[in-house]
Structure formats: structure tokens, C-alpha cells
């Protein structure tokens, strides 16, 4: 799956739960926030959708039929096998270490315990989706940024957005779009720098060090005069952040 997409493209989410009220409320909530949402209430229906379409994130309950057991774990394993670039969030009312472990062993990225507040679901969907986007361009940013998420909500959102923005700067993209994205990166960096240093800035610097993000954006804008100039400024700011950890 091509993970690197323009920031204007909506994150594609499949929400699966056998309870109609849950799947509809989650679907409506995420759609209202700009996600491209498909819903399903059966294992086989979800599998069919994964076969036919591409999703950034699949959110699934564990039990998917009356009297059922762990259909959601089977779906998780199916998604991991069929669409390895798609992240899976498992929701379960069964609060046990064994269930959490089983979900992760089947490939779940995150396990959430019901009832899941919809804003929490949204944050996790966004984090997983951005991780997918990050993986497409700068793999070594993935795990460190994952660890940075969830500490300070505002900074977490900026870190997630930063990863997605960095990944969006690509050689085939229009110069104007790359320039706009790079200016947005400068804004995010300024915000991170002003509000939460040195901890987060240092963490980000640690993430960026050796990630190749700087060279990626310079290479992508090599033949784009305007975007290239902004890329040089972004690269300088990123290098400065990378040095932050060495001086922390």
C-alpha cells in the first residue's frame, strides 16, 4: 500500500462491531472529524471489505456475533496477513492481560478497553494512521514517535502531524504543495520548540537523529527552487533539534 499521501486525503478507517449502535456512533463521530469511514458488523463482511479496499486503520471489537468469541482476533490476523501496512485497533470489554496479549500476538497495534471514549478512539486512529504514513518515508521515526504520543495531548498531536508532514514531501509532488507543507513543518517545529522543550524537543531530536528525514526532504525538493529553499531552512531546524539531545 502506498502510505505516503497528501495531508488533504482523509484517513481511511474500517470500524467493525456487531452492535449497530456502537458501530454507527463511532462511524458518525469519526466522519464528522474528517475521516473516511466504512462500517461492518460481521467478520466476513469486514474481511470482504479488506480484500476489496485499502484502509489505514481497522478498529474491531473482539466478539463479532451473538454467542461468538474471538472473531475480532481472527480479523486482526487476517488484516495483518492481507494488508500489512494497515494498523489494527482492538476494542474489548474483556479486561485481562491474557486478552491484551492475545490481541497483540495476532497483530493488534493498540488494545482499548470498553467503554472507549470516542475522542480517545480518534487519537489512537490518528496515531496509527500517522505511523503508517511515517513508515512510508522515514521508518526510524516510527517507534520513537509512537513512544512520544499520548504524553501531552497538544504536543502529541503536533508530533503526529510532523511525522505526516515530513512524509508528505515527495519528489513527484507539485512544488507549491511541497513548499506549503514545508512551511507547515516550520510552524509545528516552532510550536514544539516554544511549548514543551527541552523534554519533547529532545525526544524529537532523538527521533530525528539518523532517521534520514532531513536528507529525504532535501532530495525531494532538489529541483524545486522555492520549496528547496524552505527545505534548507527546515533541515537546519531539524539538525538543531537533533543536537538538542546531545546537549540535554
Amino acid at each position, binding site marked *: 500500500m502506498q502510505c505516503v499521501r497528501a495531508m488533504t486525503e482523509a484517513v481511511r478507517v474500517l470500524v467493525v462491531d456487531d452492535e449497530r449502535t456502537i458501530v454507527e456512533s463511532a462511524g458518525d463521530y469519526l466522519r464528522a472529524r474528517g475521516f473516511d469511514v466504512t462500517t461492518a*458488523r460481521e467478520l466476513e463482511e469486514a*474481511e470482504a471489505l479488506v480484500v476489496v479496499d485499502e484502509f489505514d486503520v481497522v478498529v474491531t471489537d473482539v466478539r463479532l456475533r451473538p454467542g461468538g468469541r474471538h472473531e475480532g482476533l481472527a480479523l486482526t490476523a487476517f488484516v495483518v496477513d492481507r494488508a500489512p501496512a494497515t494498523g489494527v485497533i482492538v476494542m474489548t470489554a474483556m479486561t485481562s492481560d491474557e486478552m491484551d496479549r492475545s490481541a497483540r500476538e495476532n497483530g493488534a497495534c493498540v488494545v482499548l478497553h470498553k467503554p472507549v471514549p470516542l475522542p480517545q478512539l480518534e487519537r489512537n486512529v490518528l496515531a496509527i494512521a500517522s505511523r503508517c504514513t511515517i513508515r512510508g518515508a522515514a521508518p526510524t521515526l516510527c517507534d520513537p514517535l509512537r513512544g512520544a504520543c499520548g504524553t501531552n495531548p497538544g504536543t502529541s498531536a503536533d508530533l503526529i502531524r510532523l511525522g505526516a508532514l515530513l512524509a508528505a514531501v515527495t519528489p513527484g509532488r507539485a512544488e507549491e504543495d511541497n513548499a506549503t507543507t514545508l512551511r507547515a513543518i516550520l510552524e509545528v517545529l516552532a510550536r514544539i520548540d516554544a511549548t514543551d522543550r527541552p523534554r519533547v524537543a529532545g525526544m524529537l531530536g532523538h527521533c530525528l537523529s539518523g532517521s534520514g528525514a532531513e536528507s529525504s526532504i532535501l532530495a525531494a525538493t532538489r529541483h524545486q527552487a522555492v520549496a528547496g529553499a524552505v527545505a534548507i531552512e527546515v533541515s537546519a531546524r531539524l539538525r538543531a533539534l537533533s543536537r538538542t539531545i546531545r546537549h540535554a
Partner: protein
Amino acid sequence: MTDPTLLDEVLAPGGITTCVQPIVQFRETGFRVDAVECLSRGPGHTNGRRAEVLFEYVRRRHAEMRVDRACLQAALRAVQTLPAELDIAVNVHAATLANDAGFSDFVLAACAETGIDARRLTLEITEHAGTADRRRLFSALDSLRACGVRFALDDLGAGTSNYAMILEARPEILKIDRFIVHGCARDRRRLAMIRNICDLATQLDATLVAEGVEEPDDRDALLAAGIFRMQGYLFGRPFDPRSWPMAQASGA
């Protein structure tokens, strides 16, 4: 009371809707519609409204037999007002033909109910690559052939077709997959494949239909290769058969 499943909704009265896409035959006077392929959709408010999702789901639910019966019945009822000179093509899973012992009788009963001569009917066999009981499959084919029904194998050139099936099923019609057709005018490899398929069809006394024809130059390349029956957006998109006279007037 639990909510109905997607399968429940598909099998409920009115759960299947049928569109038709024209299949044209090239003659000296130009192209003429001489058949339609019936395309089934699930309820519009469900994921089954998309055929590719519907039938992937149906296969995963192992419900091919029930859904094929529903689709066939809906299709024949939908096209019963079309001109009698048009042939009707309906898709059927190979698993249904092999495993549904009463399917032949069901087909003939549906034809009788709608007044459609069985000799107008072509059943397009889908998903035949993994068919376990070929003996029962071919027995069903023979039974229906005796009543005038013809058979087509589609996706020729794609991964699911195979020579063994062509040899044993002896389809009257072979449908060339759109993957081979699209862009054939500019791709000598695709043209080479098409010429080979033409020769094969001639040797097997089968009629070829090229699917997915969207470009005039592909149409012309297919004609030059000797393929005179085609289907695709160039000749008309799927439409509600109830709008047939209007579709004809617009050139669909």
C-alpha cells in the same frame, strides 16, 4: 432480537437489484446490441451495494447457492420486458452448479415464470478455479444444455481461468478479461495474446466476447484480430433494464 446480517438483507424480498450491460455484435451496418449481461447489487444502504464486496462476502459466508438463486430470479424478472431477440447472460458460481442439486430445475422454473426461453439464457460460470466436484458440475451443465442453456467462462486471461476447465466444460462462449483487452491497441504483447485466444476459440468452436472495451482504438484492434462481440463502457455502462428504450436512444 438481533439485527439482520448483510446476508439476511440480501436474501430478503427486493434485496437484489439488477442492472444490465449491453453486449454488442459487430455487423456490416455497425454494432448492434444482441445480448445483455445481468449484474447484481445488494441493498443500497449496505456494503453489498458494491458487487465486488457483495460476492466476496457471499463466498466467505459459503452462501453462493442461496444468493445465486436470488440473483438469477431477480435478473430474469428484471429483464422479462426486454426485447425477445436479446440473449440474457447471468453469472453463476461454479460451486452452485456443482453443489446445488436442484439448481437446474430452479433455472428452468424461473425461465418459465418469466416467459424467457431457456435458449436465450447464457450462464457465465465464475470462480471455477477451485471447484472440487467437477463431475457434478459438468453433469449440471449437460442437464441445462439439453434445454438450450449456453455457458460462458469469463476472466479468460486472468488468474482464475484454466485450460482444464475450458476443455471439460466446453463453454459456448469465452470472455476475454479486461486486463488483456485494455490497452491492447498499443501493446504488442496483449495483441499477441488476443490472437492466440482467437485461434483457440476457433479450434474449440467457441464465440469470443471481449470485456472492458473502453477505447475506440482497442475496439478497432479487436476487430482487426477477428473479435466481433464486445462489452464495455464504450458501448454502454450498466443501467436499469426498465429504462431500456431510453438507453437505446442515447446509444448506450
